């Protein structure tokens, strides 16, 4: 009979358990960080995509992989007119403002995209802008001239005219001094300038410009096809995975134990009913049922959790606990309890269940990753919760966008690695706990 405290201190003796605990601790820390740094509603909003991500490149790899391999791929550079010098010139009825946005470009590779975001404040008369590009060598390349509305997004890198003028895609052509037609152009590093000359027709009119020179790499985890920083999904996936796994594991094991104990104690038809229910339920396949419910009804994660728990209760665990509880039922102390007036409920909850609880712990710990994987599987199949960012979701998107085909390995590897890490951590801890709480296995 192993006591709780002794049991937990014994964990120290198993290096694999210590490693597992460290991993779990890291995951929990990540989860806590994720939940505090990005509150739930915020996370939902972010994951819906859209404007929040407009400054991020599409399908960018993680920055560090590139660095590790010795490359010098460009990061995203954002320059705003707020920080740039502006010259004003009075033209009488109008005003000329010249803003020069400086772009320091020291990288080896070309940007993936170049966008110019313009926001104009005016009452009636739209300002007129002329944009041109100045290379470090002084070459001036005109880009565009147009009237500016309230919000405009000008995709320089997708400007066909500019492309045909430069003979190359603009994000390449603007950053190289190679002649048009030469293959494999190299980057001309240095300081570039985007000069914006705006004519304002009103005194109070303003123009805000933001130039985003998108890099090829971003952040620790890269971005996906909707420019979303994968870090958000991976971070937020942690608490979701842990919570789902934990709640499902707790819900099923504790309930299973109590039901098994009730069956053992009352015997007769109660026990028989529970056993038959269990036998039928064991045969039913869990994942297909979940798929059915998800497809036909709803994929809300709470619903999935509920179904998983309910179907998980009448599992093989009931049979195992029953066989462990049957001899306990005959124990003298149970008879003594009846003799001093204990009722069935008390005997079940306070005298039978606690006897088995220590054995429950390793089962419970190793069950957590099972449910984490289950949730991820559902998400990969497209039945994940529609609003929450989870690891499975990321994998699902990756698969839908043919990530591997396009070479976006990071998109698949990071969520997979996290899933494996979770499984590993809990499994190592669980097996060590198994050896502690089941003394018969100790010599293995």
């Amino acid at each position, binding site marked *: *009979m192993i*006591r709780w405290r002794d049991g937990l201190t014994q964990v120290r003796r198993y290096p694999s358990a210590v490693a597992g605990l460290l991993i779990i601790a890291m995951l929990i820390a990540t989860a806590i960080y994720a939940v505090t740094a990005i509150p739930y509603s915020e996370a939902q909003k972010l994951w819906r995509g859209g404007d929040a991500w407009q400054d991020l490149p599409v399908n960018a790899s993680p920055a560090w992989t590139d660095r590790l391999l010795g490359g010098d791929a460009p990061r995203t550079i954002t320059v705003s007119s707020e920080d740039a010098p502006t010259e004003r010139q009075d033209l009488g009825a109008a005003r000329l403002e010249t803003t020069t946005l400086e772009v320091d470009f020291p990288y080896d590779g070309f940007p993936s995209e170049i966008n110019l975001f313009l926001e104009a404040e005016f009452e009636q008369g739209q300002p007129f802008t002329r944009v041109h590009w100045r290379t470090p060598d002084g070459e001036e390349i005109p880009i565009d001239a147009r009237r500016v509305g309230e919000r405009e997004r000008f995709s320089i890198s997708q400007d066909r005219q500019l492309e045909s003028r430069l003979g190359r895609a603009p994000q390449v052509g603007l950053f190289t001094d190679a002649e048009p037609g030469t293959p494999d152009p190299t980057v001309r590093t240095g300081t570039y300038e985007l000069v914006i000359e705006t004519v304002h027709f009103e005194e109070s009119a303003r123009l805000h410009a933001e130039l985003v020179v998108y890099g090829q790499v971003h952040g620790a985890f890269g971005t996906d096809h909707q420019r979303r920083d994968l870090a958000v999904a991976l971070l937020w996936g942690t608490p979701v995975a842990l919570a789902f796994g934990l709640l499902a594991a707790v819900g099923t094991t504790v309930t299973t134990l109590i039901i098994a104990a009730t069956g053992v104690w009352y015997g007769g038809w109660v026990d028989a009913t529970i056993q038959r229910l269990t036998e039928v339920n064991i045969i039913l396949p869990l994942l297909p049922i979940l798929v059915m419910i998800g497809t036909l009804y709803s994929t809300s994660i709470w619903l999935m959790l509920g179904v998983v728990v309910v179907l998980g209760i009448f599992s093989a665990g009931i049979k195992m606990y029953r066989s462990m509880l049957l001899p306990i039922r005959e124990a*003298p*102390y149970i008879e003594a309890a009846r*003799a001093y007036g204990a*009722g069935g409920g008390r005997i079940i909850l306070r005298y039978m269940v606690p006897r088995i609880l220590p054995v429950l712990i390793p089962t419970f710990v190793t069950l957590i990753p099972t449910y984490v994987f289950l949730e991820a599987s559902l998400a990969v199949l497209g039945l994940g919760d529609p609003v929450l960012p989870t690891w499975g979701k990321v994998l699902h998107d990756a698969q839908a966008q043919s990530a591997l085909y396009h070479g976006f390995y990071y998109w698949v590897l990071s969520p997979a690695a996290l899933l494996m890490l979770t499984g590993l951590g809990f499994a190592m801890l669980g097996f060590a706990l198994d050896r502690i709480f089941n003394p018969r296995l100790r010599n293995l």
Partner: protein
Amino acid sequence: MSLHSPIAAHTTGSTDEALLCVDGLHTHFELRQWGFLRTGTVRAVDGVAFSLDAGEAIAVVGESGCGKSSLARTLLGLHRPTAGSARFAGTEVGELNGAALKTYRAQVGYVQQDPYGALPPFMEVQRILAEPLIIHGVRPRAERWRRIEAALEEVGLSPAAEVAGKFPHQLSGGQQQRVVIARALLLRPAMIIADEPVSMLDASVRVEILNLLHRVQQEHDLALLYITHDLSTVRHYVDRAMVMYGGRIVEQAPVDALLQRPQHPYTEALLSALGDPDAANAGRPRPVPGGEAPSLIQPPTGCRYHPRCPHAMAGRCELDPPPPDFRPRPEHRAACWLRE
């Protein structure tokens, strides 16, 4: 100072009715296969009658399979009797249910054979002893602790605070049994049923525990039903002794009379099989009746002992069971045709 408050007036009229009155008690168990097929009946208690006064100690002596444990469980309300009556302070034990049964259980303490098995291994002594108090609504916690402390001191486990924090496996067999006795006393019962309380203890500890039980019984004026298979342990601890065989009582007498002038052949056999430590014992075999203990499923007809009895009378002992005439409390009776 006694922690015990005696049972109030009986509910029936007669004031000299004994505390426990058992008459024609039968407890049978159905053997079932697959939950419903009846394959036999175990006649564990097959017509038992005796009475026990408040403050009196009696021994029920018998070997394994004689039904003594089933008798104990029936009297504790753990089994329903199949027939007959067992009246405790006027109430029929076999008909109790729900709250009345719970109240009854507070009045009878139970000391079991296996001291380690009788204690939940995952609870400390304090918690173990608190359980009966909690169940019967003793509040607040300070009051419970007071009673637990008093009980521990009484059974000789001191300092109480130190023992209270231990787990059963940290105690010796004797200490465990003391805790069991303490637990039996907590609800201030009027009667204690002790089923082989020292059989699983080391011989050197037995006397300690029997002495304790005796002292407690005397101090609180408790009725005691001491069940044992070892006749050598009854002499100094009980007033009367009953011998049980094959689900029935075969002899009842004041303890000295039973030990010195046994009247039933089975009692004689038991006494001959026992001996005090004496080197001369090694030289001669002891007389032991042949045969085996009777099956309770298919007991011998008539007197249960007759297949093994050296005095069996053909024609009489197989056919008619001798009348179990143990009411009102006789001085010394044996259920044997020889003594009729």
